[in-house]
């Protein structure tokens, strides 16, 4: 029952978020601040993880291709496929659920327990629009983060490949260009937009509707991370089934 109730409130929250918009001059600043916190602030860790995991994916692939009949360029091909299709959109989103998600939950949750949300409501401000909408808009730039992750993942793979001596630079470059299917990029970015929406709304939901004090803010962040990841993984499954299998 409570699950159904929560799912209901979640969708009501999303509808409410678009109502009675905050004054644009104020909203503009909120969006810029959230772009800084959520997008710019995540670039460092995303770049770091993408580069090194890209490298590891390449090493693993290369080490597991022991059959001499398999051409060397397949290392590049396999790296590109895993990074573009899964690693960048999904894996990075799970990391973002931890980083951005817990930030959103704890900052909105703190505003809840210190009555700042009540203060907004008492002034006649739609607090959901004020708090969640700017996060939703700034996360529309999330595909930009994922593009960087894709690029650096492939570069990381290339570095690992060449420095580890698994194949030549030429082979790797041939590999990452082999059998390129443009729809795979479309698929990856559809996922990215869906995950961006999840990353903005589920953590906000957990922060906004939390009850209690500082201790509960911590608990809410954890719950929020769990649910955001679960929903991302499930949607990933359904979207892949829907978009890629014929």
């Amino acid at each position, binding site marked *: 029952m409570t699950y159904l109730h929560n799912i209901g409130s979640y969708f009501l929250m999303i509808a409410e978020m678009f109502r*009675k918009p905050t004054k644009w001059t104020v909203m503009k600043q909120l969006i810029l601040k959230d772009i800084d916190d959520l997008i710019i602030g995540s670039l460092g860790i995303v770049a770091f993880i993408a580069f090194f995991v890209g490298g590891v994916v390449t090493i693993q692939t290369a080490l597991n291709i022991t059959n001499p009949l398999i051409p060397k360029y397949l290392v590049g091909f396999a790296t590109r496929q895993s990074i573009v299709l899964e690693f960048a959109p999904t894996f990075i989103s799970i990391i973002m659920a931890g980083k951005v998600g817990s930030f959103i939950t704890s900052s909105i949750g703190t505003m809840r327990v*210190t009555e700042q949300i*009540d*203060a907004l409501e*008492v002034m*006649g401000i739609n607090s959901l629009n004020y708090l969640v909408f700017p996060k939703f808009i700034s996360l529309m730039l999330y595909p930009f983060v994922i593009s960087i992750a894709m690029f650096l993942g492939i570069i990381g793979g290339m570095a690992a490949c060449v420095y580890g001596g698994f194949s030549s630079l030429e082979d790797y470059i041939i590999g990452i260009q082999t059998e390129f299917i443009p729809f795979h990029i479309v698929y990856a970015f559809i996922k990215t937009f869906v995950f961006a929406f999840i990353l903005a709304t589920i953590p906000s939901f957990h922060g906004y509707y939390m009850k209690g004090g500082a201790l509960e803010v911590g608990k809410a962040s954890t719950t929020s991370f769990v649910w955001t990841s679960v929903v991302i993984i499930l949607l990933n499954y359904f979207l892949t089934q829907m978009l890629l299998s014929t």
Partner: protein
Amino acid sequence: MIEVKDLHKSFGEAHILKGITTSFEKGKTNLIIGQSGSGKTVFLKCLLGLFDYEKGAIEYDGKIFSKLSDDEKRNLRAKIGMVFQGSALFDSMTIAENVMFPLRMFTKHSKSEMQDRVDFALQRVNLEGAHNKMPSEASGGMQKRVAIARAIVNNPKYLFCDEPNSGLDPKTAIVIDNLIQEITDEYQITTVINSHDMNSVMEIGEKIVFLKDGLKAWEGSNKTIFKTDNEVVTDFVYSSNLFKKVREMYLKDYK
């Protein structure tokens, strides 16, 4: 004027407000007093529509609050100033930005006009020069005063204060009390104040509602509170030794 009719509020099994009927008058400082835990904050939050209640009605100048549409509620609330018990300052903004917030949201003043209003409000709560501090860098009493400045900066029609002078030294507390009374009178605001401070009761208790165990135990003003025989009230009023002494001296003088 705000009228409250038979207000009931529970949290689960706990029946906190058990049918309160009273009214708060325009241009006067209306006090709600009572012991800690008597339901003052819950009552105030029901008035503001922050809590749903099971039964009863609240009328703002004749309009039943619960019957207003969401947009009408928000328009009404734009005319409300509220000081929360814990100040509830926006901790991502400086003190000046906090005070300017209602102006930025609801007025079309130019930047410099807003700045002037903010300066004026901060000066009235004795906080000149604190503009650029963050709330976390201000003391509890300063935060309270910033919250008051934020509540009054946009000339509200209704002003609610949940213990505006708890945590303040006696001198500042009186300054704040007088400030609230002044602007209430000047702008004909309907002001409702939660308090358990006897000084405030004496200074600004133009109308007093006494809550006990979720019921209105007594109603009157600072003119009548020291004369009443109502035991619940005398028990509360003379719980401090100072007031006991004052009363003994007073009674002696009159014998």
